[in-house]
Every structure is written in C-alpha cells, then in structure tokens.
C-alpha cells in the first residue's frame, strides 16, 4: 500500500517537475515558434500566439539566401570550419604535450608544468588586447585562422589530459618498453585509447567554445564572407518588423545556432557528465 502511495507521489512530483521544466524552456519554444512566423505577423499579432496561425519556413529560406550581403549559410560553414579545425588542432597539440608532462622525464619539466598551471588562474581578459595586437602583427586580421590559433596555447586541455594520463597503470608502460615499443607508438596505440573519454569531453567543450565564441570574432572579423554564425546573425538583423531581416529571421538563425548544440547535448550527455567529474579532478 505504502509502496503504491510512494509511486503515486513520485508520478505527481515528476509531472510537476515536467511542467516547471517546460516553463523553464519556454524561451526556446518561443524562439522556435517565432521563427515560423512572418516578422510582420510576429511584431503585430495580439495576443502573441505560441502556435503560429500560418506556420511558414520562409524565414529559414531567407537566411539561407545571401541576398542581404551577409549569408547565414556561409556563417554556418565558417563556424563549422573554425570549430572542427580548432578542436582537432587543439587535441593534436595537447595530447603529446600532456603525455610529455605526465609520463616523460626531461629538463625543465617542473618549470613548464607549473607555468602551465599558473596560467589557469589568469582571467582570460588579460589576453584580449595583446592577442588582438599579435594577430594584427601576424597579418591574420579578418581570417578564420585568427579565431583558431590563440586558443591552441591554452593549458586547460593539457592539464585535464595529464591528470587523466596519470591513471595509466605503470605495468602497461613497462610491458610496452620490453616489447621495444617506441614512445610515439606507445602514445598512439596505448595512451590515446586509454584517454579517449577525456579526449571526447575536451573535444566537446572545445567545439562548443569555438561554436559559441562571440567577443573575439566580433573584434577580429570585418568582411561578411568571413563571419561566423553568431556574428552573421548579429550583423544580419535589422529592425524587428522588417519583413526580410526582422525578428522571424533572427529567431530562425538563433534556432539554427542552438539546434546542433542541443543535438550534441542529447547524444553525448553521458560524456558531459563524465566531463564534470574530470573537470573537478581532485576537487575533493
């Protein structure tokens, strides 16, 4: 009897939580709903309607037609290029570095390691102005490379991977030495598979970081064909009631910027949880 009662209580509270979650997510629903309306309708209809009277995909068509000089589809492509290349390049440089700092002996290791750690405590804003100047001096202003390169020097990824690599059993390494395995082969065939979860977490965080980045691209990009999605959207938007670049189109663009993240989130949710464990390595 009491078990049944418990179950009933659980159902009731679950439903209450669902309703609250739906309310919490209302902005996202509203974004999607508006994206299906003509801008003129969206700004003039009273009362505002959650389900559009005449849902239309025109807004999505409009942002993909580069008629206004700024192409959102180009923005998506640029964002993808930056996010994917940045993430891959980040892993390619961070994994060997983490390996060197966790498993190899060399002169200056301590100094390097502790300077890597010290940098983690620096607020990112310190780097903004100098990065801007360095990118300018390297002649990389208004290029996609300018969005990727500065991130490669970050030490968080190296640190995270290193902590994870410390868990590789010594015996595994000794066995590999006896087999005459080279360091590089050991790294590729044994270390990389072992740290795969950490790499996926880091990769996802890095991808999202590049995908969502706003202030930095806003500063270094100036020509429309280089714009990433967030910048294209901000620049694309004109008045709210504008039938071509108004709120409907803006919300369509916003939805497109959010949708892949939502999909990634749902697909990789297990790894995100794991990432939190990793991110708080030794935090207790």
């Amino acid at each position, binding site marked *: 009897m009491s078990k049944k009662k418990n179950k009933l209580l659980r159902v009731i509270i679950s439903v209450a*939580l669902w309703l609250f979650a739906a309310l919490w997510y209302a902005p996202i629903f509203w974004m999607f709903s508006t994206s299906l309306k003509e801008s003129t309708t969206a*700004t003039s209809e009273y009362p505002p309607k959650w389900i559009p009277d005449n849902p239309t995909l025109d807004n999505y068509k409009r942002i993909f037609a580069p008629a206004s000089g700024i192409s959102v589809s180009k923005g998506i492509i640029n964002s993808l290029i930056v996010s994917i290349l940045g993430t891959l390049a980040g892993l390619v440089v961070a994994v060997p570095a983490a390996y060197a700092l966790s498993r190899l002996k060399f002169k200056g290791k301590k100094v390097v390691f502790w300077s890597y750690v010290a940098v983690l405590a620096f*607020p990112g*804003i310190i780097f903004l102005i100098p990065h801007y100047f360095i990118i300018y001096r390297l002649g990389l202003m208004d290029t996609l490379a300018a969005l990727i390169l500065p991130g490669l020097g970050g030490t968080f990824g190296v640190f995270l991977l290193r902590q994870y690599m*410390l868990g590789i059993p010594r015996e595994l390494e000794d066995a590999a030495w006896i087999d005459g395995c080279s360091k590089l082969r050991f790294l590729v065939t044994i270390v990389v598979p072992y740290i795969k979860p950490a790499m996926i977490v880091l990769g996802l965080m890095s991808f999202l970081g590049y995908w969502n980045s706003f202030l930095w691209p806003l500063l270094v990009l100036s020509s429309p064909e280089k714009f990433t999605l967030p910048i294209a959207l901000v620049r694309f938007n004109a008045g709210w009631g504008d039938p071509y670049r108004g709120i409907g189109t803006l919300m369509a663009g916003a939805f497109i910027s959010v949708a892949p993240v939502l999909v990634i989130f749902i697909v990789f949710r297990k790894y995100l949880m794991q990432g939190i464990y990793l991110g*708080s*390595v030794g935090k*207790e």
Partner: protein
Amino acid sequence: MAEKTDILMEKQLKKMRMKRILKRELGAWGFLLPHFFFFVLFIVIPVVYGFVMSFYRWSLLGTTRFVGLDNYVRIWNDSRFWQSVKNTVLFAIISIPLVMAVSMIFALLLKKKWYGKLWLLVAFVSPTFFSSVGVLTTWRWIFSSAPNGLLNYYLTKLGLLKQPISWFETPARAWACIIGVTVWWIIGFSILLYLGALQRIPPEQYEAAKIDGAGPWAQFIHITLPWMRNVLFFDVVRQVLLAFGLFDQVYFFTAGGPAGSTRTMVYYLYMVGFERQQLGRAAAISWYMFIIIFGFALINLFILTKSIRGAEGE
C-alpha cells in the same frame, strides 16, 4: 694499463649515457614542443606584451609613444571606470549566490529518481551550452517593450503591470533582466558540478544521520554541505571569473545604458580599446582587472595545486 682502459670505458659509458639523456630530452621536448610553441606565442608573449603596452599610448595605426603611468592614472581618475567597477562587483555579489543557490536546489531535486529525469536534465542544463546570440536575442525579444512582448503581455494579463513597460529603461529593471537571464543561462554547468559531487557522498552518511534523528535541513547542513565544500569552493572561483567577464548580456540588452548604469569592466575595456582604439589604455584596464581578480586567482591556483599534489601524492 688496466686503469687506463677503465677510464676509457668510463668515458665511453659517459658518452653513451649523455647520448641517451640527450635523446630522451629531445624526444620529450618533441612531444611538448607543438603545444609549447603556441603557449609561448599566445600566453607568455601576450602577458609580457600586455604589460609593456599598458605603459604606452598604443593604437594599431598611428604612432606609439611611451607615456609611463599615464594610462593607469587616467583610468584611476575616470569616474566611468569606477562606475564600471562598482557595477561589476555589485553584479557579482548578487548573481553569484543566486546562481549557486538555484543550482543547488535543482541539483538536489535532480539527484532523486523521477520519471523522464533525463529530459529534466536536458531542460535545465542545456541552455548553458547555447550561444550568447541564440539565447540573448531570444530574451531581448521576450523583453520587447511592445504590448505583445511576451513578458509584458503575461504580466499585464496577470494584472501585475498596468501597461506595457520598457524593460531596459531604468537601471534597476535593466539589472533585473540581466541577472535573471544570467541565472537562467548559466546554472546548467553548476548543476552538473553539484550533481557529480552529490553522487559521491556515501549513502551511509545519510542513513547514520537518519538514525540519529536528523531532519532534511540538518542533513543538508551537516552532511551535504561539508561533503560538497571543495566543489562549491571551486564553483565560487569559477563564478567570480565569469562574473568579472560579463559582457555579452550588456552588449545585447543595454549597451551599457541607461547612462552607463549597466556598463561592466569588460564593456568599458571594449569601449576604450575597440571603439576608441586606445589599446594601451585598454591593456592597463585589463591589468586593473587582474589586480582585482588576483585574490580569487590565487585561490584558484591554490585549489589546483592542492589537487595536483593530491593526484600525485599516492
């Protein structure tokens, strides 16, 4: 004679050892080098450069001139700077405890078994991972001052508002919007952190407390909080860095207005550095920010050091 060969052999051995060490060193540095190159170029040099720049009148075009402490003095004497400091600190003081409390409530709720728990998690956590453009343009649309702006519409309908209002018109209202949206947006990461920590608390702890007759509140104070101390500490530091970096919300909602009342330190830096192209002075602002955040940076470093030592100390 035998001694001589010994010496020779020793020399030979030494040479071989040197070679091996050299090879080892080169090998290890080979692994480190690709990352180290970018580390020097985009971390070490910028720190040094940023420091040097702050003593110059510096813009991309035009001449560069050494001005000593002039940048620092001018910023010190600029009332707009102090207003931005005040705004940022106030934002941190209000938003951080709020974000942490809300996250804690959600984490405690989501720890339990519910039907469709995964979808609850998605709803509360995913916004953290959405882009500022996606999130903030949508909220700006919700805050529309028109009668059919979503918030205006529901509040007038509920009778809480007599007529539609303009949400970013007064400082208090603008801040309420910024803080509200910030909470909505960023609690996700904290929820994940707290959930992770909650799951690591051994259940026996609670059972023992229950036997001792401790209520839910007492359990929370005497078991949950102490067990989460380190995660909470970590999160405070993270939140402080985040709060001092506040820019996007201001950029999208108010552009610092009304009358500079929502101008934050990063926004001030953005204005000086990029709207007025005074990079040297902007660099000086970032060092002021560094000093203000320094205490927290130290705490951050301390936690990291402790955790590294902990991981190695086995």
